[in-house]
């Protein structure tokens, strides 16, 4: 009993109560370096999907077709706010914190390039890759309607019984060819490099 009274006397002090209910702290404000979930910057998305390719968190971002055109959509439950999507977007469609300011100031960017490798031992020359390729579809309708190459500018074609990568620089990294290769003969490597202004064009 004596100890209980001691504790009441120690803690039930008027000063303690008044400070507890009238405490004043500085209002919460995001610091300028804070990086929140990416939001739309208002610039036009060209559906290059580099944001999705750069994203390290599964299911954190996708790009949807809306009445206003293509738009990236962030899934906050999955997003880890790393900002790679913001840096990888070639059009600055997304923004988060000071990322765009600093990349603009420093002239830095994340640049994608794609390397296509065909294993001639596995390739049957079926042409699924070249016919399904969305880049080829735009370049040559004869290719997309049955595999006849009638254009020199094709990304992929079948030659000498094997898939031939003709214009690798046209690859957009979509991996349609890889997903539809029945023999797992074709692989697309997405190379993400940090570059400074001017380097990208070299």
């Amino acid at each position: 009993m004596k100890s209980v009274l001691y504790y009441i006397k120690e803690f039930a002090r008027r000063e303690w109560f008044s400070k507890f209910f009238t405490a004043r702290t500085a209002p919460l404000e995001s610091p300028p370096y804070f990086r929140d979930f990416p939001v739309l910057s208002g610039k036009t998305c060209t559906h290059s999907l580099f944001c999705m390719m750069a994203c390290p968190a599964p299911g954190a971002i996708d790009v949807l077709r809306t009445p206003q055109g293509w738009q990236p959509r962030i899934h906050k439950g999955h997003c880890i706010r790393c900002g790679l999507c913001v840096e990888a977007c070639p059009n600055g469609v997304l923004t988060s914190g000071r990322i765009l300011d600093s990349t603009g100031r420093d002239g830095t960017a994340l640049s994608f390039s794609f390397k296509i490798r065909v294993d001639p031992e596995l390739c049957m020359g079926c042409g699924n890759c070249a016919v399904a390729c969305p880049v080829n579809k735009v370049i040559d309708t004869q290719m997309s309607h049955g595999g006849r190459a009638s254009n020199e500018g094709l990304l992929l074609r079948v030659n000498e019984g094997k898939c031939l990568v003709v214009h690798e620089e046209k690859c957009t990294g979509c991996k349609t060819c890889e997903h539809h290769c029945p023999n797992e003969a074709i692989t697309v490597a997405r190379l993400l490099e940090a570059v400074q202004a001017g380097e990208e064009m070299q």
Partner: protein
Amino acid sequence: MRIEDVICPFCGCLCDDLVVEVQGTTVVSVENGCTLAHEKFTGDNRLQAPIKRDGRTWHPVSYDEAIETTAQILLEADRPLLYGWSGTNGEAQSIGVHLAELLGAVIDNTSTVCHGPSIMAIQEVGHPGCTLGQVKNRADVIVYWGANPIEAHPRHMSRYTTYADGFFVKGAFLERKVIVADVRETETSNIADEFMHIEPGGDYAVLSALRAIVRGKADIIPSYVSGVAREQLVRVAEMCMNAKFGAIFFGLGLTMSRGKYKNIRNAVELTEELNRFTKFTISPMRGHWNVYGSNEVFTWISGYPFAVDFARGIAFYNPGETTSIDILRRGECDACLVVASDPGAHFPKQCCRHLAEIPTILIDPHVNVTTHLSHLQIPVAVTGIDSEGTAYRMDGVPIRTRMLYKSRYPSDREILEKIYQIVLKEKGP
């Protein structure tokens, strides 16, 4: 010399969009063709001249001597068999049937070991089929049953079915569903939307289950039918019923497994059931190049598509009795002319042994397994490379093949014509 729109002489797809570069009498490059086409055009294992077996060795003979020997062997035989025909053109096949009629021989083609059961089923219940162009332009559900087109018909999916943009299916594979039914995982099943993994010999039961579901009797289906879950069967049946246009392609996994022609009959009847709901077609994946043509040519002339026996003076057809395998297995035939095929690589051991015992003559451009069973081989030009002629695509579309360069070899047609003339002279009209 660069030649465009060349027809491939390998499989039943008869791709007609190849671009071939020829230097002299050699094909140096092939564009648009698959690996099989490339090897067919550029392969160089041609036999240089007719060869005749002499004990354990071979010695070259002239074409005239080879033709004369062949004719004499066929004339002296009591029960000659003329087998093969799928690698050559319709004109040569036509001479073959007339030769068989003159000799009172049995003439059979490679259907006997591939889609013979399909033909027997079609004779019973018909063939709700269509050309590959229809499939390409309309089909939104493709079923491959017991077939692995990536290995056997590599361009089938990219040229005619799944990946090709069609007139009414602009989005190609994005708008199409591919269902594969097989006893094992295959390259084709790797890229299928639905893979029915059927236990070996269970195709008939699975087809019957699908027919029951299509007829609204899903509740009587057990939990598993030959290894396929009821839920998957219902899903596949609904996918087919909801199709705008469906196409079933079946291969030797269906024709040559337990049930044989009854499997095909069941598949055709499933197609008929599906046509109560939507448009559905079914077609065999004819493998050997012009094997469909040999069925056509045999039928025009004799009324029967394969295994035609002229021993009675009239055409007689009874698969199981007049088919090559059965004739050879019984040791019945005493001379065999093999044209444009390789039974040595495909026939059972017992049949091959008999082929080696009797005088077997092979008319084929290449050295193959049958060469080692033969007594005489006559090399000829390859139809579609250095000889021209008509061939039938797997959907029954006749295509005229081209001669890419002047050959130093005679064509099968010329050789067979000469043999025919000798036999005609002996036998009389």
